[in-house]
């Protein structure tokens, strides 16, 4: 392509971005016209991406300005976490749960327990859930006996890399809870000192509470009966 032609295309794209499509459509040469059009689409996409990135960059400040007025305890706790551990929240704030990223979970958990104004001394419930679309999620219900407040923490991980830091040394019941979640969902808890199955035998295959679980054919030579479809 000659430099002259390139110059012409660039000019036409600029015209197109400004809204002047007629001069592009008027081009006689089909090859040139399609080149201009594809260049135009590319330019538009780049502009859009830049706008999204700019919005993302400015959003944390914006959202924090938005959430401050909300008096819901869940939002307040989430805001405290975000303040202490920047870039740890994985989702916008809401009234039901706090969605966080797995990386800093151990530090956040120890802080949640030791910070005097929070003092979540009791891990009430911990469970996994299969979200479908290759995603698993661990959920923690924390409660403070002293202040009588509670939160739900959610951590989503992909199936291919289902690793979450273990909080077994912070709340001791986490030991058995995490082993059960590993047993049923195959989420690995890094740093767990006794990472074994809880309810199923050690040599069982698969993770039963995943939605696509298929039971193994035999276990030590015993044929496992298949579940009948529906109920009689």
């Amino acid at each position, binding site marked *: 392509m000659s430099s002259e032609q390139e110059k012409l295309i660039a000019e036409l794209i600029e015209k197109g971005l400004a809204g002047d499509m007629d001069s592009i459509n008027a081009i006689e040469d089909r090859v040139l016209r399609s080149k201009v059009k594809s260049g135009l689409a590319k330019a538009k996409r780049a502009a859009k991406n830049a706008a999204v990135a700019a919005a993302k960059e400015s959003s944390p400040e914006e959202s924090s300005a938005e959430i401050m007025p909300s008096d819901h305890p869940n939002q307040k706790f989430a805001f405290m976490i975000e303040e202490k551990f920047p870039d740890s929240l994985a989702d916008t704030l809401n009234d039901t749960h706090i969605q966080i990223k797995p990386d800093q979970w151990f530090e956040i958990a120890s802080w949640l327990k030791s910070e005097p104004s929070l003092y979540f001394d009791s891990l*009430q419930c911990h469970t996994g859930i299969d979200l479908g679309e290759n995603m698993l999620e661990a959920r923690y219900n924390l409660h403070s006996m002293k202040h009588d407040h509670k939160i739900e923490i959610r951590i989503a991980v992909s199936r291919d890399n289902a690793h979450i830091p273990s909080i077994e040394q912070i709340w001791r019941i986490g030991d058995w809870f995490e082993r059960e979640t590993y047993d049923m969902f195959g989420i690995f808890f890094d740093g767990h000192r006794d990472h074994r199955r809880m309810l199923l035998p050690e040599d069982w295959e698969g993770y039963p*509470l995943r939605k696509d679980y298929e039971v193994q054919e035999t276990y030590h030579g015993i044929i496992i009966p298949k579940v009948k479809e529906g109920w009689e």
Partner: protein
Amino acid sequence: MGVVHGEEMVLNIGPQHPSTHGVLRLKVKTDGEIISEITPVIGYLHRCFEKHCENMTYDQVIPFTDRCDYLAAMANNFGYVVAVEELMELKVPEKVEYIRVIMAELQRIASHLLALGVYGLDIGAFTPFLFMLRDRERILDMFEMTCGARLLYNYMWVGGVSHDLPKGFVETAFQFLDYFEPQIEEYNKLLTYNKIFIERTADIGVLPQDVAISYGVSGPNLRASGVKWDLRRNDTYSIYEKFDFDVCIGDGGQGTLGDCWDRYYVRMLEVKESVKILRQALAQMPKDGDVHQALPKKIRPPKGSIYSRTETPRGDLGFYIESDGSPIPTRVKMRSPAFTALSVLGELAGGWMMSDVISILGSLDIVLGEIDR
């Protein structure tokens, strides 16, 4: 000359053993008579409760909750229906609430009687066990009178109960309470203040408060360590705020705070409080009202999730339910109080004698059906 080995010995208790209260296996490392490490192995009674729940409608789950804690099935029904009703934001008629509280408290007495009696039996006291089972039988008769079943009731439904109270139930219940209250004194004479029993339980297996909370121990086991925490008071549900009763805590009456004797005695005190609640509830209950009035035609909770807790005889029973708006739950997690109570055993039993393990395990009052689900 042979060599005397001073090494550790691994001893296996269970899975078939009368004092493990079901099919529980304990791997015990002993140094002579002293326990150095104890590892519970569970799962022998795993029946895939949670997986089954994902293939059934919400009301079909209720009979399964019976079979989890088969010694306090009413309380498990109660915990589950409260969770589903909370998710649906369903209000149930006042009469239903009264019936549920009456059933839950009768169940608490029945469950505690078995726990106390079997605890005596574990330690070698046979007679109190027979006395307590005799009185528990009268409560089971009342359940049979109400819904036809003696152990697994399927009595509480989402939005109501399966049957109204039968004619003459209130009178029978009052008669039972009048008969039962003096019996508590007899149990105390027979077992509670028995010298041998105190020797076997006081100062044994002391559970400090912070350890108990960290391990998620709840219910009578937690209260025996001196924590005044009862969901009926602290996170009240149903109509418990209407009744006047005390939250009983351990006080180290025969030894140290949080020992086996305290865990036993808190249950005995709680039986008295349940009698108190029952007397109030039976007297205040509205005479008429339809118990099926609020039953939903189709149980279809809105999209969302809930974690709801109730106080069963064994402690905080939690249900985590995730709904996608369909008639079948996406996920039902049962957080069982016996599961958390058993997890503390390793911490609790280390350093004690072999015979104390039975004392400590019995005092936790576990039900394996609920642990393995």
